[in-house]
């Protein structure tokens, strides 16, 4: 092979290796593009109840009193009182009343949706299509991700669906998970790094933790289903604490399962952080007469803390995005009430996204995109904190 050919071959492969790397970046970009593309765009909104039947005149010509009368006439007694209890109708502004009539009386629904690129590039075609196919409806540019979507409870109408219950559920599950997993994981990491000798038992524990990190999350879900949901049902349902009307499929079961899942990650990261603490610190402490625990508590842990916290935050983001084990232990698909204690039924953000993808209607695809955007923002925030901590940590190590 001539030298020139070898160099040309080298240049070609340089390009191929670079494209392989770029392919990863492109996939990430496409994924984000796809989500944003589905999260915004035109939608045709159309009442599913003919307004002429329930309203005397077109809505914008009605007075507040007439709107109130329409609401009272068309809602059941119970539904009216419930809505009045949330916020008295007398205290609502005109805009709020109109919104309420749109949602509950004429029951507006999104009947057709378009993606963001489509909406931006083919605006005139979409307007023509909407006017032709849906003469009753009105075309509106929607941001599916909006404050109402975050703040509203679940609804069977996609247009008025919200993910407040799912966000609260995620928050409670993750909080409880980390409260359980962090102390235990840190304890195990300290034991393995500072106390464990080379006995067979300690080697077994170490190998075992490494292997547990590779067990598929769905298997943890099955463990949780059999142990926490079924065998320990009286504890996880809160029955022994006097909570009636519940089974084992609660926030507590979810958090215990999730804790077992992220435990190996916390332990392995914790071990690395503890191992990075220079031995001279320990020896200095022993030299001054400190006991082993005093040395660990006052010298090793403070120095390893940023590294430990980084690992903990990364495991929290794992827990936040994990779906499969929670499907197995039985997250609920529809919850009417916000979860308010650890024995409540729950749903979490990724489960809601999964449920949205299971719906055949187009508008649920937009809802899923909006929910994904929220999930990604939460994850991004968590990871930024982890990176900040890591940077502070490396600065401190340079000072030592």
């Amino acid at each position, binding site marked *: 092979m001539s030298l020139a050919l070898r160099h040309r*071959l*080298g240049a070609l*492969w*340089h390009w191929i*290796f*670079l494209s*392989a*790397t770029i*392919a*990863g*970046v492109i*996939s*990430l970009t*496409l*994924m984000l593009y*796809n*989500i944003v593309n589905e999260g915004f765009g035109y939608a045709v909104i159309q009442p599913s109840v003919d307004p002429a039947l329930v309203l005397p005149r077109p809505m914008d010509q009605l007075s507040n009193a007439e709107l109130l009368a329409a609401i009272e006439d068309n809602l059941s007694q119970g539904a009216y009182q419930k809505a009045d209890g949330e916020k008295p109708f007398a205290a609502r502004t005109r805009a709020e009343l109109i919104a309420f009539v749109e949602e509950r009386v004429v029951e507006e629904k999104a009947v057709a949706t378009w993606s963001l690129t489509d909406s931006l590039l083919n605006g005139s075609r979409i307007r023509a299509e909407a006017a032709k196919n849906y003469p009753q409806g009105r075309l509106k540019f929607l941001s599916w991700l909006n404050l109402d979507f975050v703040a509203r409870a679940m609804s069977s109408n996609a247009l008025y669906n919200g993910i407040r219950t799912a966000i609260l559920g995620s928050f409670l599950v993750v909080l409880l998970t980390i409260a359980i997993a962090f*102390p235990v994981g840190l*304890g*195990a990491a*300290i*034991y393995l790094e500072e*106390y*464990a000798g080379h006995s067979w038992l300690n080697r077994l*524990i170490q190998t*075992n933790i490494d*292997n*547990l990190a*590779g*067990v*598929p*999350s*769905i*298997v943890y879900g*099955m*463990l949780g*289903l059999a*142990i926490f949901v*079924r065998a320990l049902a009286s504890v996880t349902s809160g029955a022994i604490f006097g909570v009636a009307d519940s089974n084992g499929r609660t926030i507590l079961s979810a958090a215990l399962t999730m804790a077992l899942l992220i*435990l*190996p990650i916390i332990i392995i990261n914790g071990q690395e952080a503890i191992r990075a603490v220079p031995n001279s610190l320990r020896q200095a402490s*022993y030299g001054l007469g400190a006991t082993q*625990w005093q040395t660990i508590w006052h010298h090793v842990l403070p120095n390893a803390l940023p590294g430990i916290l980084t690992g903990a935050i990364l495991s929290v983001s794992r827990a936040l*995005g994990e*779906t*499969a084990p929670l*499907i*197995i*232990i*039985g997250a609920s698909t529809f919850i009417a009430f916000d979860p308010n204690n650890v024995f409540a039924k729950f749903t979490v953000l*990724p489960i809601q*996204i*999964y449920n949205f*993808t*299971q719906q055949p209607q187009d508008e649920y*695809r937009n809802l899923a995109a909006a929910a*994904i955007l929220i999930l*990604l923002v939460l*994850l991004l925030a968590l*990871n930024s904190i982890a990176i900040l901590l890591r940077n502070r940590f490396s600065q401190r190590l340079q000072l030592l």
Partner: protein
Amino acid sequence: MTLQTEAAATPRLTSERPQNLYGRTSLRKRPRPLESLIQSFLFLCGALSIATTLGIVYVLGQESLQFFTNPEVSLTEFFFTTYWQPEAGEYGIWALANSTFITSLIAMCVAVPFGLGAAVYLSEYASPHARNFLKPTLEILAGVPTVVYGYFALTFITPILRAVFGVETVEIYNMASAGLVMGIMILPLISSMSEDALHAVPRSLREAAYGLGATRFEVATQVVVPAALSGVTAAFILGVARAVGETMIVAIAAGSGSLFTFNPFKAAETMTGYIARISGGDVSYASLQYQSIFAVGLMLFVVTLTLNIISRRFVARFREVYE
């Protein structure tokens, strides 16, 4: 840490401590109940991991045992037939295992070339500036929740496949799009593990090859990659384990309802997809269907555990040579 003090030098301190034959005192022997208590607690934290493993083995084993001892199921049927229709009492694991195999194969066809290519580029070619941008980007890809990948497969890759190969050929739910996206998900795992392995190859090997007149490409492919081969293999095996255990992507994009087919454009349920679908519904705890998910789960656990252990062996061998 053994601290020993001359008894004669510090008589006052040694008075209440155990002394050995030579008149020396060992600080270690002084009983410290609190310290031992803490140590036992920390040991329990570590031992919890063993309890977890035992729990998994017990739960999967016990329910599977009930499944296999049921007269409606036979081991030969389970391991040697290709129909999985729990409603009709047919339990042939190959219908599910085959889909798992196909999706994982497609995933590896994407992840191995791209992952290894990216690893070689990052380790051997990239300028520090490019590395600082590319590496974190791939890490972001690794942090995206799998449910998001599933959404991407269903709403982006599937329409593209259907546009390219025809709506009749490609079903709405199909193994190909799930496999392709699973490949993208595994790519960062393979690239980062392989890059670590390539990075650990001693500089002297590269210098020697350059000294003999090799080009950068020849050094990378004929010296560095072969030297790091066991580390790279470990990354591949771990990638396979990840693909086999992946649930959300296949549950969303590969369809429900088992089918024994080698056509990647058909909908076919994988092992994980079956477990997720059955346990997501309201199935009674005593039913055979409920027990069947544990039998499938046991297979899954055995396969992924074996792959993990093999992968770890390769890493250990690699470490032995270079670290």
